[in-house]
């Protein structure tokens, strides 16, 4: 039961709001990560914790697209098919994923590893085609990178199961110099967490010397640099 295993986290969350009901979304994320998806029992449990009518919580689960009321794969792949991505290779990416996984949208692969979904704009249109894997961004996923991506994700399946599908620990991943995706401690210096699937990593860009006068700013976020 969540109250036994996560009491402290739940109390912290509820303490942020003037009304406990505000904690519904964060608690549903927690339940979804612990149980894999939001079963009826899990939804009732959240309702009980917050002393809400069950219908109030079922309604929320039905309304928001990031809550899954049926089992999903270890990795939830959510590909943006919106304008402009759909004109920049997103459809080809979706086709490549469907071919490779032998599934259609909203289905889960036979081994339970991947669920495929089309989603709307992910606010990364400059890096199209783009997808999220359990809410980790993956940029510039041209169809030729699909095999490498799926292999990489497969090799991290155990991690994915531990982290859950809701992205509550999305920050814990970083790319090493060798291009591997690794867990980083919560207090480690900031690192880029979103990773790219590609061959050898590009040579690091030379950084300007640290002693910069105020005013040495930049007009753009460069393509190709990790955010």
């Amino acid at each position: 039961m969540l109250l036994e295993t996560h009491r402290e986290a739940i109390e912290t969350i509820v303490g942020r709001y003037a009304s406990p009901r505000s904690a519904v979304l964060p608690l549903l994320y927690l339940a979804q990560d612990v149980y894999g998806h939001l079963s009826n029992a899990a939804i009732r449990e959240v309702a009980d914790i917050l002393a809400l009518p069950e219908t109030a919580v079922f309604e929320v689960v039905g309304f928001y697209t990031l809550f899954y009321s049926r089992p999903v794969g270890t990795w939830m792949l959510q590909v943006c098919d919106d304008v402009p991505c759909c004109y920049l290779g997103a459809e080809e990416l979706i086709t490549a994923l469907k071919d490779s996984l032998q599934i259609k949208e909203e289905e889960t692969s036979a081994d339970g590893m991947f669920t495929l979904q089309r989603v709307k704009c992910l606010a990364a249109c400059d890096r199209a085609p783009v997808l999220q894997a359990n809410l980790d961004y993956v940029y510039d996923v041209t169809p030729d990178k699909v095999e490498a991506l799926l292999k990489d994700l497969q090799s991290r399946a155990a991690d994915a199961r531990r982290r859950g599908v809701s992205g509550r620990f999305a920050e814990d991943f970083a790319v090493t110099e060798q291009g591997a995706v690794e867990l980083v401690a919560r207090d480690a210096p900031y690192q880029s967490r979103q990773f790219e699937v590609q061959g050898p990593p590009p040579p690091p860009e030379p950084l300007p010397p640290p002693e910069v006068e105020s005013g040495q700013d930049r007009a753009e976020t460069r393509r190709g640099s990790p955010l």
Partner: protein
Amino acid sequence: MGLSDYIIMRELNFPDINRFERYCQVGGWEAYRTAVKEQTPATIVQMVKEAGLRGRGGAGFPTGIKWSFLPKDVFPRYLLCNCDESEPGTFNNHQIIDRNPHQLIEGVALSAYAIECHTAYIYMRGEFAAAALTLEQAIDEAYRAGLLGKNILGTGYDLDIYVHRGAGAYICGEETALMESLEGKIGQPRLKPPFPAVAGLYGKPTIINNVETLANVPRIVEKGVAWYRSHGTEKSPGTKCFSLSGHVNRPGNYELPFGVPLRELIESPEYGGGMKGSRPIKIIIPGGASAPWLTAKHLDVPLDYEGVAAAGSMLGSGAVIVLNDTVKAPHVAYKMDEFFKHESCGKCTPCREGTHWLVKVLHRLAEEGHAEPDDIPTLHGIYRQMAGNCFCLLGESAVMPIKSALELFPEEFEAIIKASNERHQRNGAHAIPLRVS
């Protein structure tokens, strides 16, 4: 016309600017320290008002004026920072947070101080899971430095900032739907009035502002009104972080003063770098999916609220989507209305039903090439029943793509209808049912 001094994308070249100490080394958090210790909240509100800062969330409403709508002496008050950023084509809030979270947090803290509130929430779309953690880490650093929490810098001022993640619903960017969502309900908009400044979150006076809007505040307070107003135009002062995407060579976020012509953003080698493969421009959508379309004729339109409005569109979120001649206008309208259909909250009939019917007809026509002779009047009929009848602006926005497509490219609809008619000679053999979804 490059900028020598950026406001929103400041110091992005400074290594590790996302760390607290590094941000402080370039003057970060100074504006807030000074304000809390030496300036009254009213001074800050006055500065923001005089600077002419306008809301970057879409409407361009003057921020200082919005702040002064708060009823006097009613407490508690809340500040909400809107980071729902889900409008197709818009991606600057995302990058502002990923690269320089402290600037936003300082902006939120300063604004909270200005409106005399002690609790602020940053509402992020659920997909920004990593960005939410970036912000939480940065907020922790600010707490540790004594800039947030109780009795800040010994002044007796208290402030808590929390990050709250939504769960995948564009409509939660609408300010009253955001409040519903933050209260743990489904994200359906509320009737206005009462406006949020009078009765917002938990029925208390609430100010809601976009990420980019609040990220401007530290620089205004630090460098003053005259400096701020030296950027941009008289009516749209300051700079705007334009999200440029589509068939351009260099998509990305570019910070430019208001008033720069569209052509410069798209064609300048510093920014968009022109069209991929030098193909001609067909459609320019200057303010996210909700904005009426422009075309290559409009390249000289100045990018400020007034200029884009005069050209018949709106600056909206500053997301500029540029599409070339390989796209078909009916298909673009289909994809965009599919977005609105997907995101309609279902509260009111014109939007819930209207977006569904638009998508059904457009899918048959644009995706499958099966058109009925009267499809054009049908489409006009559907959007006319929506326009002016929807409960909130999402439904009204859904009218724009189809209306623009029919106005600007009627011949493309006619061609599909003609081809479809000839192919089937109207013998009924082509009668396929509307897609049931």
